[in-house]
């Protein structure tokens, strides 16, 4: 070695010595390697799918992709949580998609369906406000939307908020206490029948979401399914006081309410016999007492006292 690595050694000799020192023992590729290279060539630009590429390149890249997807998901959730939290803290309305996502993942936000009901109820309330200028058609349309939104609520959600039902009841009363309007609601205002049950609707038919919607003695609301008991069909009508209108969930009682000019306490009690469709008593139908005591008690549960009382009065006013 010393003679080869001695100072007189030329560059060429030194290069040759290096080449020998680093010469690989095997100079021919293995048949398997040749086959892999041919396979990679056959796949062309998709050579990355080949076994070697996957072993040397794709696996680490797949790892990075997995981490990237995880990071992206975490970032998305973070943005949603922070965004919803910020909006909640600032009192700003949370965008509907964000609210839906937050609700779906279990964050403490108001259910989207409930927010929709509240929004629709605000609209109807605005329609009903004096001087709003809203036409009966518009009001009926908005009331129909509110009725549809109310039907989407779960029992628990419906129990948590009652004022939209009162608003809807006021809208329905608008059609029921004015004969002309009421008739219009049945014939010319398409959404009125959706918001307020038609005369022939049977109790618990579902038009009112299982009878849990307001029945404030307006004469247009049937009672809930359970409200029928103890109250034979026609009780309300015979009770003339009908005011109760709601009586026992008898449809068409609105007509009876309008026509009942003879207060009949006895009859009034009959509709009140119903348990109120399972809804807690709310003093609704207080007005109905003028036409038939107890009528108001019978039917409503959970309705705002104000709206119920007003409706009862409407039904009994002579």
């Amino acid at each position, binding site marked *: *070695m*010393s003679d*080869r*690595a*001695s*100072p007189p*050694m030329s*560059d060429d000799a*030194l*290069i040759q*010595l*290096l*080449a*020998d*020192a*680093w*010469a*690989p*023992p*095997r*100079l*021919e*590729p*293995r048949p398997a*390697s*040749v086959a*892999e*290279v*041919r396979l*990679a*060539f*056959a*796949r*062309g*630009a998709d*050579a*990355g799918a*080949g076994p*070697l*590429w996957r*072993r*040397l*390149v794709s696996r*680490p890249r797949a790892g990075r992709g997995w981490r990237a997807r995880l990071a992206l998901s975490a970032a998305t959730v973070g943005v949603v949580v922070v965004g919803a939290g910020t909006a909640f803290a600032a009192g700003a309305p949370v965008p509907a998609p964000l609210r839906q996502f937050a609700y779906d993942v279990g964050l403490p936000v108001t259910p989207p369906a409930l927010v929709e009901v509240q929004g629709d109820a605000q609209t109807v309330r605005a329609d009903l406000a004096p001087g709003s200028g809203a036409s009966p058609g518009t009001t009926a349309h908005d009331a129909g939307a509110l009725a549809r939104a109310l039907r989407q609520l779960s029992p628990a959600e419906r129990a948590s908020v009652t004022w939209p039902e009162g608003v809807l009841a006021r809208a329905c009363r608008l059609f029921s206490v004015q004969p002309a309007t009421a008739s219009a609601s049945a014939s010319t205002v398409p959404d009125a029948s959706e918001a307020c049950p038609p005369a022939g609707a049977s109790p618990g038919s579902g038009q009112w979401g299982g009878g849990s919607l307001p029945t404030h003695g307006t004469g247009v609301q049937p009672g809930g399914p359970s409200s029928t008991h103890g109250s034979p069909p026609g009780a309300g009508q015979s009770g003339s006081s009908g005011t109760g209108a709601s009586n026992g969930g008898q449809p068409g009682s609105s007509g009876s309410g309008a026509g009942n000019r003879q207060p009949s306490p006895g009859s009034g009690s009959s509709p009140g016999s119903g348990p109120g469709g399972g809804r807690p008593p709310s003093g609704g139908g207080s007005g109905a007492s003028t036409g038939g005591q107890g009528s108001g008690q019978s039917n409503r549960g959970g309705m705002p006292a104000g709206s119920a009382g007003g409706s009862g009065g409407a039904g009994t006013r002579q």
Partner: protein
Amino acid sequence: MDSHESDLVAGARSGDEDAWEQLYRRAYPRLYAYLARRLGRVDAEDAVNETMARAVAGLGRYRPGPAGFDGWLFGIARHVSLDHQRRHNRRPRHAPTLVPDPPTGSDPGEGLELAADHLRVRRAYEALSRSDRELLDLRVVAGLSAEQTAAVLGRRPGAVRTAQSRALARLRTLLEQTDE
């Protein structure tokens, strides 16, 4: 690039698998030696095939130039080795982990002496700077010309020759020191 290699490259670009295999077989010994020196024998063969796979993917972008197909291919191989080292977060492997098979010959004593000489050269080589080793890897182990090495490293051929001369002088000095 000789005419035969040009024909093979043209055939491969037109989809001829046999032409591609011939290019692979021609380049394999030098690719293997180059990558084995930089990565070790364990990873060398896979790295060679990865180089070829990347070359297939980029064959449409290849434009014949002064460095020829070999210069282009070893440029890919260099990136493969750098990626591999980066992925494993390690420096290039050198002589201690790369002991070649004992030379075969009629005289067993001479074979052992050659093996010892090679080991001393590799140790001296390992003592060179990283840039010296990188240049000599291409010039000596891969057998590229100064022009091809210049193309791979992005330097001028004259600068490559000068750097090579200096690297060899340093290696010679190191060998002298080991002799003493």
